[in-house]
């Protein structure tokens, strides 16, 4: 690639990176995506595929509005992708549940929602607490232990693996240069351009967007930015394909358009992506059978663990470098939910060369210092 110069080098070929890269290509930028190889630790291959609103924003009120913006943009985003690639990422927004298996869980849930909605400046997104009978009207297969839950009409889900493939296909269509096995070792800025060193040579670009997930922690300081991360491991159980039985996604259990049921949402401190705790899978399975007893005899075909991309406070980081003009961070946990924002809102800002403070100022990593000072 020596001699090639790009407008923007996107570091990271996961969902955040490819959504941003696609948005940049739409703005007419000449883009290169630098990715790791087949065995990279990838949240894009290990996520729950929710386009989720409820619960978002406790502790940082603007995050609720930012999430709703993406949720609302998702339909158009998926339509654009379909026009370009012919692939349907199966976005649905039927409203979603958080189910509780005891009165105590339900009470905790209600309290959390109250705290969330009592924050100043929060967008009220109409999450209701429903009892067993109300839930059963919408989820007829719920078991007797499901005492109730919360429902938010804005919640939805998507086929996130197909989204991943579709974005890659769309990049390919738009002539974006995709370079796998190009792990970025160092980034420097010389003579007004960025130089990114990889095992396969140096890549040069006028701008750089860091979308490398947890690896942003290592990369951001190279361009005068920071990304304090706190990765954690989650585990998922996947069943065989079933006929449709579940019309709404539950935050810990959803049926994909292909028919498989994904069950999960665990948190462990380990960052070993190859490890898997059977007792955690067992807990997830046990809760799934209590929530939906008809799943008891269904076959589990796969379990997996993956490392969550997680900033230290759990909220996204969008930043532009003061010391290295043209360097940006795009870093968050919810790469599926926020994909529409990354493609349609963040990418145009990067293309223009400046973030729009009115939209993303609350998500600067400078907030970590404010907290320290306080």
């Amino acid at each position, binding site marked *: 690639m020596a001699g090639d110069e790009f407008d923007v080098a996107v570091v990271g070929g996961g969902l955040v990176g490819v959504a941003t890269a696609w948005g940049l290509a739409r703005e007419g930028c000449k883009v290169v995506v630098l990715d790791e*190889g*087949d*065995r990279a630790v*990838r949240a*894009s*291959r290990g996520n729950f595929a929710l386009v989720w609103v409820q619960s978002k924003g406790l502790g940082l009120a603007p995050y609720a509005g930012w999430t709703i913006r993406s949720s609302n943009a998702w339909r158009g985003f998926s339509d654009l992708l379909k026009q370009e690639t012919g692939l349907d990422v199966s976005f649905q927004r039927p409203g979603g549940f958080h189910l509780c298996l005891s009165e105590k*869980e339900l009470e905790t849930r209600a309290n959390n929602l109250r705290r969330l909605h009592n924050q100043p400046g929060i967008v009220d997104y109409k999450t209701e607490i429903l009892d067993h009978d109300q839930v059963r009207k919408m989820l007829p297969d719920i078991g007797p232990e499901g005492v109730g839950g919360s429902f938010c009409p804005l919640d939805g889900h998507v086929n996130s*693996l197909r989204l*991943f*493939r579709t974005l*890659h*296909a769309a990049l*390919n269509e738009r002539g974006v240069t*995709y*370079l*796998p*096995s190009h792990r970025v070792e160092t980034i420097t800025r010389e003579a007004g351009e960025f130089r990114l060193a990889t095992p396969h040579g140096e890549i040069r670009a006028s701008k750089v967007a860091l979308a490398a997930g947890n690896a942003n922690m290592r990369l951001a300081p190279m361009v005068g930015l920071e990304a304090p991360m706190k990765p954690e491991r989650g585990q998922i*159980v996947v*069943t*065989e394909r079933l006929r449709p039985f579940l019309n709404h996604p539950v935050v810990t259990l959803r049926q994909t358009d*292909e028919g498989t049921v994904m*069950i999960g*949402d*665990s*948190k*462990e401190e380990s960052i070993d992506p*190859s490890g*898997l*705790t*059977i*007792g*955690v*899978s*067992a*807990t*997830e*399975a*046990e*809760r*799934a*059978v209590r929530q939906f007893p008809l*799943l*008891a*005899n*269904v*076959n*589990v*075909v*796969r*379990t*997996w663990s993956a490392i969550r991309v997680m900033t230290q406070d759990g909220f996204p980081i969008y930043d532009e470098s003061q010391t290295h003009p043209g360097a940006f961070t795009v870093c968050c946990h919810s790469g599926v939910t926020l994909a529409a924002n990354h493609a349609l809102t963040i990418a145009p800002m990067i293309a223009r060369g400046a973030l729009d403070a009115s939209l993303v100022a609350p998500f600067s990593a400078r907030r970590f210092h404010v907290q320290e000072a306080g």
Partner: protein
Amino acid sequence: MIAAADLASSCDLVVIGGGPAGLAAAALAARAGVSTVLFDENPGVGGQIYRAITSTPVSDRAILGEDYWDGAALAAEAKASGALIVNGATVWSLDRQRLVGVSLGGKARLIEAGRVIIATGSQERPFPIPGWTLPGVMTAGAAQTALKAHGLVVGARTVLAGGGPLLWLLAAQTLRAGGTIDAILDTTPRRNWLQAILHLPDFALSPYFAKGLALLREVRGRVRVHRADRIEAVGTDRVREVVFSSGGREQRLPVDLLLLHQGVVPNVNLANAAGVAHVWNDRQLCFVPVLDADFGSSAPGIAVAGDGAGIAGGTAAAERGRIAAIAAVRALKPEAVVPDTQAIRQSLQREEMGRAFLDWLNRPADSFRQPVGDTIACRCEEVTAKQVRDTANMGCEGPNQMKAFLRCGMGPCQGRLCGLTITELIAAERKTSPEEVGYYRLRPPVKPITLAELASLPISEAERKAVER
């Protein structure tokens, strides 16, 4: 019959698979006084080579041949050894701490093992030709199992296709049992001889030399053999005819059964999921575990014996099982008396002598391993060769990313019938080696278990808290 609830929660040695390697390993270890459990998925022991050795309805010994009946002694020896042999038991998980997940009678259990010997053997190499998913297309091994275990022999309008010792053995056994074979389509490239001939002297000294020649003579005298460099199974609801060509000349035969075979490859799923390192073996065109002289793997205390360690045949498998068992006994019970490994290693060496010749001679043609167009590569998720090739060209450089993009390997067979094809297709498109491309990273359960079974397993407070927050 033992039930899942009656299984001890820990034991010295768990042997997984009741073929020659597993039977020999369990017998040796149990006799040395090590508490040994052998789990086998089938209703009876024997593995595939000695399938149904204790129950076969085929009473005429000449039909299956004396090599088959060798298995009876192994089974008897294992039974008498004191090892606990559990049939109908599916091992669905194994980790580096040697925690073994087993399912028996619809109930799951976890068992802590001091040492583990994986003896899950081999499976037939994928044979992705157009139409290979149609009913009526089966593997030659399947027909052999039908004969050994159930006394079922193939009737009229049967065609065998492919190459390798098992294909010819099945043909001979079928003819002896009164079955009919209309034709054999030999897909082995003639130019394979150029490489194989270098290893002929070794092969001539191996026990397989005389047997192989006799088998070929027996079959060639009675069945029409065609060469084929392209084969297609044709039909809509089931296979109706097989179309094949050699050097461009196309022929068609009506069929009820098309039996495919192009060699066997290690069954890597359990070892892979346990984190055992594997490497590409270019002679056998498959991934094999990285093993030491005692068949110990990169995962501490886990050995892989038998054909799972690389294809060498049934007799070699038993010797490998014994060597692995001796290492296990030495680690678990140093004071135990075990046989000297030297004689076993010599016997193993004799068995392995002709392998290079057989491997090179029967090396399947690229065109039968690397399909094109709409030919299905992943049977479970019905992913075509073209989709895989196109996605590789889009920048997807490995099977794990391919799996995420196309769902190949995500079905119930967990990549067993597509893994090698996907790796080879990516390597071909990206002009690199299968070693470089690598294989699927597999996860438990390597065989499906029910959600209720998973839910029944022990849960610690910390594990519960990781989910209930």
